[in-house]
Every structure is written in C-alpha cells, then in structure tokens.
C-alpha cells in the first residue's frame, strides 16, 4: 500500500519532518566543513555565538530576518494560489527603486514617519509592477510563470544596472549608487528593542522595517485564511478545476495574487535601502529573493512558520559572517552551501523521509 495518503498528526508533519530534514541538511553541510579540515562542531558553536551571543549579533540576525520575512511571504502568497514566483529577487530589486525615488524626493522636506508610508507604497508598487507582466502572461497567454519570472530577474537586473550607472549615480562619483538619504529618508534603528533585553545594538542595522515585516505577516494571515479573496486563492491553488466550477475567475486571481506577491517582495527593499545603507546600491538584494523560496518552504507557507524560518536563515547569515572571521579556512560562502542544503532537504527532498516515518508511526500506534 502506498504511504503517500496516510494522514499523520500535525506535530509530525509540521514539526518532526521539517526538523529531521534540517538535521540532514546540517549533517551534509558539516561534512563539507569536515572535508576542508575544520571541526563542524566548533563551526556550529561559533556560528551560534556569532548570531545570538551579543546584542549587536542579534541586531544583525534580525536585520537579515526582516528581509527574509518579506521575500518568504512573497513566495508563500503566490504558492497558495498554485503559482511559483521565483522572481522575488527581481521584484525586490525594482522595489528598491520605488523606495529610493520616494526617499530622494521627500527626505529634504519631511521627517521619516511622513516619508515611510509613501516609501512602503512606492516599494510595493514597483515590486508589483515587476510581477505584473509575468502575471499577465500567465493569466492571459498561458506562459509558464516560473520561466517568465526568471527572465524578469535578469531584465530588472539590467534595468537597475542602467539606472544606477547612468541615471541615479552622483555626478563625479565612481560607485554606482544614489546619494545618501537625509534622516528624513531613513528608517530609525530599533535600538530600544535590543535594549529591552539588556543588549546594545552597536552597528547593527536592525530598523523599523522589522516591525513592518511583522505587520505584513499578520495581514497575510488575515488575507489567506480570513478573507474571501484568500479563500479563492487557496481554492485555485488546490484545484484549478474546482475553482473554475465555483465561478472563481482564474485570470483575476492570478493577477491579484502576483501583484500582492510582487508588492511584498518589493517592500523587502525598505530594509537594506532605507534602513541600513540609506542609499540605493547595485545588487543590494544579494540573493534574499531566492532565500525567500527556502523560507516559504520551511515555514510551510504559513506566516508563523515563515517568521521562524526567516529567523533560522537570519542566524545562518549573521553567524556565517562571524564564522568566516573566526575560522579563516571557511569563507562566507559556506552560508550559501548550507542554504542550498536546506533548500534541497527541506524543499526538494521533503517527502524522502515520509514513507519510513509513516511505517514507523503505524508500527508504534499499532494501526
């Protein structure tokens, strides 16, 4: 008998299996560390201390977490409607342009809390614009959304390259970036949040967009599980034929879902652009869009899970950076390997352990 249809209790499905997959991913990453002649246990210890040991480390960890929450939500919203948005990377990149234009236009005249709502809207609009064409191509012309969103990652990359090198660059400067925003175009640091737990934020760029990310998690939860639109999205995701039978318009839902997904990805730009560097820089997304895929998968497309998974990847990013200082044999790119392993085991191989666990469960419960 096939094991695929045997129901398992939630704690196994959402707790034990992801945990075991994670352990496997870390085991294979540890093998890599061991193979290059370093101690995996020492590496893990340094990684955890680097990420969570001091207030500044926690600040950096939460800074990365913020970016991953946005991109994770972006991927998750699309997945609920059965769409694989692999273009969060490009959408976040273009979102940065939206946020930067708002900041450049307003920072001279108003304080940050006036700029912020406009920047959120600007980033979301530009991110959504980047998702709009692939969404339209999927909805009306039947082009595969995975392919078109990949293509758009590269189109946006070229466009932003042009904008930064030719248009937005400060005249006379070499670096392809905008001018530094004045305080009216920056998001304030969350030093009080770290101070509440008795730490010091130091140089960590944890900023207000962390709170925006948490609000977005709540809004996404409301959208997906508490609104008619969310119900229609999930219906489409589970069974397109049932959705069509129920009178749900395919092209409308695809468009709306992708615009929301692109908007969430675009908002990610607030964190690095307005929160950390206070300017728009080339390639500032740095793979966070792709990490969003892993975050969404690990978090089972639920906002609560996404926060936890984003935190995990935040720890990996910050801890990995510290690790490369402490262990010269390991470069920062070890994080990329670990990410790949996590995506592989928690994502692509998520069903690998299920049959054996089902058998074990059946033996133990005597069914």
């Amino acid at each position: 008998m096939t094991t695929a249809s045997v129901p398992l209790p939630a704690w196994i499905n959402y707790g034990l299996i992801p945990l075991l997959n994670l352990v496997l991913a870390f085991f294979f990453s540890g093998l890599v560390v061991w193979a290059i002649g370093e101690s995996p246990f020492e590496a893990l210890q340094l990684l955890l201390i680097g990420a969570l040991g001091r207030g500044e480390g926690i600040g950096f960890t939460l800074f990365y977490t913020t970016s991953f929450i946005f991109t994770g939500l972006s991927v998750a919203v699309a997945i609920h409607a059965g769409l694989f948005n692999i273009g969060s990377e490009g959408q976040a990149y273009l979102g940065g342009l939206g946020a930067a234009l708002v900041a450049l236009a307003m920072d001279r005249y108003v304080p940050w809390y006036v700029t912020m709502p406009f920047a959120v809207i600007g980033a979301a609009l530009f991110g959504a614009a980047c998702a709009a064409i692939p969404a339209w191509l999927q909805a009306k012309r039947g082009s595969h959304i995975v392919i078109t969103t990949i293509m758009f990652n590269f189109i946006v990359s070229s466009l932003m390259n042009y904008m930064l090198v030719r248009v937005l660059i400060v005249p006379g400067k070499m670096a392809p970036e905008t001018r530094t925003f004045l305080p009216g175009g920056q998001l304030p640091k969350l030093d009080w949040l770290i101070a509440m737990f008795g730490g010091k934020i130091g140089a960590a760029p944890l900023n207000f967009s962390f709170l925006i990310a948490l609000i977005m998690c709540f809004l996404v939860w409301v959208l997906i599980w508490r609104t008619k639109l969310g119900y229609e999205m999930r219906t489409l995701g589970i069974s397109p034929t049932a959705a069509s039978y129920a009178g749900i318009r395919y092209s409308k839902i695809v468009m709306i879902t992708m615009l929301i997904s692109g908007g969430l990805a675009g908002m990610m730009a607030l964190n690095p652009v307005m929160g950390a560097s206070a300017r728009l820089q080339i390639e500032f997304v740095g793979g966070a869009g792709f990490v969003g895929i892993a975050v969404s998968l690990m978090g089972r497309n639920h906002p609560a899970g996404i926060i936890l998974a984003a935190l995990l990847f935040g720890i990996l990013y910050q801890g990995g950076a510290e690790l490369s200082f402490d262990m010269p044999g390991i470069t920062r790119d070890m994080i990329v390997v670990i990410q790949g392993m996590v995506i592989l085991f928690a994502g692509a191989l998520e069903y690998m352990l299920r049959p054996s666990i089902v058998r074990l469960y059946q033996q133990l419960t005597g069914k």
Partner: protein
Amino acid sequence: MDYFDIFISILGSAVRLSIPLLFTALAGLFSERAGIFDIGLEGKMLASAFAAACVAYWTGNAWFGLLGGISVSIVFSFVHGFASITNRGNQIVSGVALNFVAAGLTIVLGQAWFRQGGRTGQVPPEGRFSSIVLPGADMMRDVPIIGPLYANVISGNNVLTYIAFLMVPISWWVLYRTRFGLRLRAVGENPGAVDTAGISVAWMRYRSLIVAGFLCGFAGTYLSIAQSAAFINNMSAGKGYIALAALIFAKWKPVPVMLACLLFGFLDAFANFMQGKSLPLIGEVPVQIFQALPYILTCVLLAGFIGTARPPKAGGVPYTKER
C-alpha cells in the same frame, strides 16, 4: 578597419560566446523533453567548470579535466533525479537548491584548496584546450569574403567548439531517429503511455538527466579550461539561465537551439563591441539593452507573439505510478 572586418571579428567572438550556451541548452533539451525542468543548469555548469579546472590543474591534462567536469555534472544530475524522480520533489526547488550548492561549494572548496579567494590555480597550457588552426587557414586569408570568414570564424577555435556543433545533429538524430529518443520524448509528453508499454518512466528520466549532465559538463569545461585558464568565482554568471531562455526560444528543438544560442551569443558579442561606442542618429546605446535582450525576446516569444512555444506536456510533473 572596414565594416566587414569588424563584422567578422564580432562573428568570431559570437561563436566563442555561444558555445557554453549551446552545450547547456542541448543539456536542457534532453532533460526537458523527458519532462524534467532543469533550473539547475547554471549550477551544473559552474560545478563542472570548477571540477575541470581542478583536475586539469592537478593532472596537466585537458581531457582529464573534461572527464572531471562531466563526472561532477552527472553527479549533480543524479541528485536532481533523486529529488525529482525518485522522491517526486518539486523540480524547480531542486534546481534552485543545486544552484545554491554549486555556487557555495565551488568557492568554499576553491578557497580551501587554492587559497586565492575562490580562484583555482592557473592551469598550464597543456591542461587547456587551445585553438586549432584548420588546414589552409593562412592560405585562405587573402581570398575576399570567404577567406576571413574561414580563417577567423571557422578556423582557430578549440576542439570543444567543433564538438558543440557536432552535438547538434547528433542530438537531433538521437531524439528523432532512435528508439531511445522516441521513448524520451514520449516520457515528456505522456509518461502514462510509456509506462503502459512496459518501459520504466523513472529509468528513462534518469537516463535523460545523465545525458544532460554529460553535455553540461562540456559547457563548464569550456568556460574554465578552453575560454580561460582558471576557474573564477561565479564564472557561469547567469549563462545557464540564458541557455534556458535559448532552449525555450528555440521551442525545444535541436537545430533552432543552435540558432538561438548563436543569436544570443551574437547579442553578447555585439554588446561587448558597442561598449562606449555611439551609433549614427541614435547615439550611444546602453549595453544593458543588449544584456536584457535575450530575456525580453524569450518573454515576447512566450507571450505567443512569435508563433507559439509549446513545452513538453508532462514537464515539471512528477510521475506517480500507482493511483
């Protein structure tokens, strides 16, 4: 230099730039026609470039380097197969994962072994594929039109270039004129029918991935020990995705794949040539337009404005035998 010479030099560089695309797109052709999406082409190319450079550096033999590149690429194919065929995982997620693993591992291992910031050591000349001057190239050079074309575009390439163009008719023959090819295409269109005929869908798909890994190994090897003399960080630089675009642009057919790769290679060469130059009337054209053009063209094609691109029907869907 007159316009014809410029054209010839761009054409020569277009051919050289299109070779890794051609190998990779043909690799994608085999896996996608068998119903396996392969976003991981980029990672396979990168990993095999690294492996080829390492082996060629250690052994000083280009052919061993090629063997190393192919082996690593096939290992990646097996992981992709294990995830997406055996465990019925999501093929796109698996491809993304492999891209990450390749991008990270090549730098981590490169740094651990060579300590040059992710570069491998300089591969000695005998460990590289150097250019071959075809017979009569120098004699032909003075013949108008055909001469420069023969001497600069057709002659003077390395052996992998000729293998790449040879792979096109071979791929066509394998896909359309052999039993293996018929079954491979059938598995991508209607795996249920293939299963009913008593042929293992999983094994067919694994074999198509091995072929894909084999071809992708050539692409990586070309990058690191034919086009240059060492592995450099992230040297595939999105070529795997351009190859994917070329594959779609060519509507999953071997000969159009070659033409699409040459077109995209030409765009790349033309962008390099246009850097900092200005056209009459239009003025300076931003190079970014040429960089984005392959992707824009592919999207326009996918939108159904240039004919219709119909992907293999069962592409991306894991096959479940028992219902």
